[in-house]
Structure formats: C-alpha cells, structure tokens
C-alpha cells in the first residue's frame, strides 16, 4: 500500500500538526467575532451573497479535508453527499410548506446532514475497504452514477430544471422568518461555527487520530489492533454528515438545487479548493474556500479567463507548494519563533514584487491573445488594467512582453538572495 500521502517529519509544511496545538480558545473567538462583524463592514447585498457562498464552501471544504487531509482518501465524487443532503432538505422544506408542519428552519441542515451520513454509510460500506486508487475510482463511479440518475429519477431530483422551494413558509423562529439575506447569513454563520468546531473536535478524538495513523501507515495501524477499514468508514460517515449540512445550508440560501450540485465538476471544484488551501492543516480548507470564492467572484467579474488562471494556480500549487496556502504560511513559523522573520521582508519584496509584475505581464499577453482570437470582427479596442488600446497594433504587445520578461528576469536574478535569506532565517543562533 503506497497510495498514501506519506508524511515526512523533517518537512514541517507537510506535517499534520494538530497534535502540537492544544485547543486554544483564541482563534475560535476571533473567528466568531469576525463572522458577527462582517455584515457591518460589507453591507451590500452582493457581499452578503458572496459571504454566504463562502461559508457554505468552507463547511464543505472542511468536510472534504476530513477525508483528503486527515484520512488520506482522495474522493472524486464528494459533491454527491452535499447535493443529496441539499435535495433532501429541499424536499423537507416543501413538505413542511405543504402540510404546515411546526418545524423550525434552522434545524433543517441537521436533517440534511443525517441524510448525507446515511448515504455515506451506504457507499462507505464497500468503498472504504481500501484507500488510494481504488477508493478514488469508486468515488468517481458513484459520483457519475448519481449525477446521471439525477436526470432519470425525476421524482427526487426534478430532472434537468432541478427542484426549488421557499424557505419563508416554515414556522417563524423566534420571530425570524428568514425573509432577509442577513438573517440567512447569521443562520449560515451559526452552522459554520458549530460544524467547524465539531470537525475540529472530531480530529482530536481517538478516531480522528487513528485516521491520521491509517493515512500514514495502514499496516502499522492494523498491527496496533485497529481496523483500518472501520477507521476510514467512520471518517467517511462523519465527512458525509458535514457535507449534508453544507447541502442543507445551500438549499436554504439558494432555494434551488439542480444536477449541477451533484456532478463531477462540483466534486472537482471542492478538491481544488481544499488542495489550494492546504490539506495538511485544519484551517487550510478555510483559507482555500475564502481565496477560491473571492477569485471566482472578483476575478470572474474582471475576465472571462478566470478558470485558466485558477487552473494554472492549482497546478503550480501541486507542483511547488504541496502544502497549499496554509503550508506556505506555516513554513514561516520556525523563522518567526527564531525571531528572524523580519530579515525576510526585504528579500521577499525584492523577488516577489517583480515576479508579480511579470505574472501580470503574462496575464496581459494571455488576455490580448484571447481578444485577438475571439473578439468580434472590427472590434479591436480592449481595456486592460484601466488602459484602453488597440489589440491589433504591435506596441501593446511589445510593452506587455517587455513587462513580463523584465519582471520574471528580476525575480530570477534576486531569487538566490531570497533563498539565502530563507536559509539564514531558519538557522538558529548567529546574529539576528
């Protein structure tokens, strides 16, 4: 069995470090306060929508990382559990509306979670007997199967137009009817805090710790008397539960679910989000979900090509920083503890700023190629970085290419100095 992320203790960025942190209350209180205050800083309706989407993605990504990061299981069909939880909640919501049941809406995600867990138990009963390629293939097959079924089984999935409902017809919850976006925001935030806390606590339970052991060395874990299969099964079910919660929140927030919530593309996105954020740390997926949603919404408004940039960023992450954004941040902890992090600032500026400018130059070239190839005939004007120019004349191309070359060139020239500063900052002792 070699299909595992094997951790190398000498590389702190790759190490699962939950053990070295005791449950400190600080970050949780800060997070809760941030969630409370955010709507007062970003008051517009679109900002609220983006934040709702972000927190739902955070829950989903954290649940996904219970498998990928903590259990070493790579799933290619995890959107199924979130989607099914969402579909179930939507049906429940319609049922409540039809029969006028006294059922408070805030409890709805719990039932989505239970449904997600039930389905995960069903699939997990045969898929968790192995990790690695076998697990990945079963998850892919089940994912495709359910996505295809969603068009066939119209009674549950509503065919191609999906199913929709109305969250406001339920019983008012302490006078709150969830008519306004802000009320939904606080409902989602509440579930986010609760699920994140529960998932964190799960990772500290014996099952959670054994999941790490099974991920790193299943044989050895079995010699200790634990069944690798059952440990994986428990992680899988717990992950399905939290995915279902995310699905329930999605149903409440958007009031519509379609085949898109189940298909392979959504499963791919959550893998991307989680890996981008960093699978080695508990908070990695949170960063990933926030960064990805921002990229998707902000960059998506600016350019049609955002998916290319995100794809390239993802590949670069896999190739150069397998620890993801969280790993990148935590790399600096040793230097910080040595009190030498300050020495890194100047070399960083010297290398990273030219590199960023060079990358922007490359992006400009890509945008110009795209405009040149696909712009409407006769439309040769394009606007990029607040300047409008003619994409068919040679001058902008020269400028963009020159910017790209100079930026990357300077970055390459100063990279050795940065590496030296990095080594120096991570060496204990000496002048600081």
């Amino acid at each position, binding site marked *: 069995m070699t299909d595992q*992320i094997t951790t190398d203790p000498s590389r702190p960025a790759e190490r699962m470090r939950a053990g070295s942190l005791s449950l400190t209350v600080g970050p949780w209180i800060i997070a809760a306060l941030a969630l409370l205050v955010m709507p007062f800083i970003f008051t517009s309706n679109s900002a609220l929508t983006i934040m709702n989407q972000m927190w739902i993605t955070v829950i989903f990504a954290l649940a996904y990382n219970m498998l990928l990061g903590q259990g070493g299981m790579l799933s290619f069909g995890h959107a199924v559990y979130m989607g099914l939880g969402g579909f179930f909640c939507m049906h429940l919501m319609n049922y409540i509306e039809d029969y006028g049941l006294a059922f408070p809406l805030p409890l709805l995600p719990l039932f989505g979670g239970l449904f997600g867990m039930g389905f995960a138990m069903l699939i997990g009963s045969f898929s968790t007997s192995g990790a*690695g390629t*076998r697990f990945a293939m079963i998850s892919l097959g089940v994912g495709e199967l359910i996505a295809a079924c969603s068009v066939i089984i119209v009674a549950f999935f509503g065919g191609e137009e999906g199913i929709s409902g109305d969250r406001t017809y339920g019983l008012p919850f302490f006078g709150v009817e969830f008519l306004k976006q802000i009320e939904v925001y606080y409902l989602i935030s509440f579930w986010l805090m609760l699920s994140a806390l529960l998932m964190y606590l799960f990772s500290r339970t014996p099952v959670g710790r054994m999941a790490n052991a099974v991920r790193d060395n299943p044989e050895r874990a079995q010699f200790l008397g634990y069944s690798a299969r059952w440990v994986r099964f428990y992680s899988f079910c717990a992950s399905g539960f939290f995915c279902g919660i995310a699905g329930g929140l999605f149903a409440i927030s958007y009031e519509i679910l379609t085949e898109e919530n189940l298909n392979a593309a959504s499963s791919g996105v959550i893998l991307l989000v989680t890996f981008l954020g960093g699978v080695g740390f508990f908070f990695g997926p949170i960063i990933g979900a926030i960064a990805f949603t921002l990229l998707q919404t902000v960059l998506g408004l600016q350019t049609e090509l955002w998916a290319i940039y995100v794809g390239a960023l993802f590949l670069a992450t*896999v190739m150069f920083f397998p620890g993801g954004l969280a790993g990148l941040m935590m790399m600096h902890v040793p230097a910080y503890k040595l009190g030498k992090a300050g020495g890194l600032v100047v070399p960083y500026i010297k290398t990273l700023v030219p590199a960023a400018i060079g990358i922007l130059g490359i992006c400009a070239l890509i945008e110009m190629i795209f405009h040149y*190839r696909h712009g409407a005939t006769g439309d040769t004007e394009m606007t990029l970085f607040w300047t409008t120019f003619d994409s068919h004349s040679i001058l902008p191309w020269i400028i963009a290419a020159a910017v790209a070359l100079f930026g990357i060139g300077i970055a390459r020239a100063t990279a050795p100095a940065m590496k030296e500063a990095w080594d120096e900052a991570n060496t204990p002792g000496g002048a600081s």
Partner: protein
Amino acid sequence: MELILVNIIDGLVTGLLLFMLSAGLTLIFSMMGVLNFAHASFYMLGAYFAYQISVALGFWMGLLLAPLIVGVLGAGVERYGLRRVHQYGHVPELIFTFGLALLIEELVQFLWGKNQMPYDVPEVLNFTAFAIAGNSIPAYKIFMIFISISIFIGLLYVLTKTRVGMIIQAALSYPRTVESLGHNVPLIFMGVFGVGTALAGVAGVIAGPVLGTFPGMAFVLGSIVFVTIVIGGLGSLWGALVASLLIGWITTFAKSYNILMSDILNGIGISTPENMSENIFRDLWSITSPQIADILPYILMVLILIFRPAGLFGKRES
C-alpha cells in the same frame, strides 16, 4: 439478425476506440502506479491538433503529425511535471493529472473557442463501404477498425517480441533491477508515457470527425476510459481490450434495443401499480435501456469493484 450484425460492428468501433485510450492509460498505470486523469485530454488535443493541421495540410498529415506532437507534449508533462510531483506521493500525482485535465480543457477553449470545430471525415473515405439489409456501413468506420487493430497488433508485437518491449516489461515490474543492469529507467518511463499519450492522440485524430471535436469531448470519454481499465483490471493490457469491447457492445446494444424496465419487472412477476403518478417508484417503471445506456459502465464498475476488486484480468493488489 441483420441488426445484430450492424450493432456488433458499431460496438466494435466504440470498443476499439476506447481500447486505444485505455491501452495507453493502463501501460502508464502499471508503470507509475498512478491513473492519468489527463489522458482523455491528450485525446482531445490530438483531435484539435489534427483539425488545425488538416486545415493546412490535409487529413493524412494530421493523422501523422498530431499524435507525434501529442506524444512529445505527454513526454514533456512526465519529465517536467509528474516526475517532480512524484516525490510527494501518489495522491498529489493523481491531483496533478486532475488539475492538468482542467487546465487543458480551459486552454482548448481559450485557443479554439467553445464551439464544435468543422473537422470532417476526409473525402477519400466518405462513402458507403457496404450495406447490411439496408443499413449502410460507412467506410470511415472500417478505416477506424483497421487503424485500431493494426495499432493493437503493433503494440503487442513491440511489447512481447522486441528487445525494447522486453526492457519495458522488465522495467514495469522491477525498475530497480533494470536500472542496476544499466538501463535508463526514467527515460523508459518518459518514453512509455509519451507513447501512451500519442496513442490517445491517434484515437483523437480518428474519432474527432465522428464524435465531434469540441471542448467537452475529453470529459465525455474520460471517465468511461477509467471505468474501462478498472473493469479490465488495472495494469492489464488484455483486460483493457476485453473491457473496452464489453463496454462498447453493452452500450451499443442497450441503445439500439428499447428494453423497458416495466417489461422486466412484469416478467419477474411484479405487476404494474395502478395509479402511477402517486407511486414514488414511478421513475423506476418508466426507465428504458437507451436512457441508462450511458450509466451502465458505471454500474458495472461499481459491481466489479465490490465483488472482484482486482478487475476481470487484474493480478496485482490495487
């Protein structure tokens, strides 16, 4: 009876096309132990390159050049991408190929747009080869069968009869030993990866005119190819052949014979419920075989993984 013959030919075309992809994929898997998610993307690149070349130089140059370009690209991906990611373990490798598949799809859309390319069957082959009871069989289908079978025979010959093939086979099972005998194993791996992706490129070149050259073509075929090699048994070339043909025929027959689920259920003694619109199983009753033809391979795969995890011909413990 005549319809069966027509379906057998159609299924054979689909199956052999699948085999060209799954052969490369399974070779790459037995070599590196990682499933190449981007394999179908190379198939798509093959079709697009062939289209671009055929605009300038004609179909036959496309058939010759596009697989070569795809193969070189594939070798480059192995050399500069996968080899680097290999040190982090198998899961990051899988994720890398997955990301590559996403990126290639985006790049294809970036360069050629979202619409289908006007990549057509060449004039020379655009005629009816023969007809079976009124069903005409286009010559292009015969051409596809011919190309796939000759590639299969060539591959089999190289792998089993030549010295290069022997070294490759040895390197698949005992890379360390082969390396210590003085062979350049990383080069062999790169070569096999290149040849595997080039095969996918050939499949793309000849399938592009029939199945359409559009940005979603990799996705449509991609997951079916994984299903194929999982059913056949990871790493087994014969398994890939059998599973490809099996899937080709199953889907073709399910599509052309309209078998109703209600007939099957009635046949095993369950009578149709009275008021269908109230019944929660109403969708189960109205299922027809053409409707589920495309998901039959997935059902088959899940069943195989449950009951025979190694696949039909698989030997190694996956």
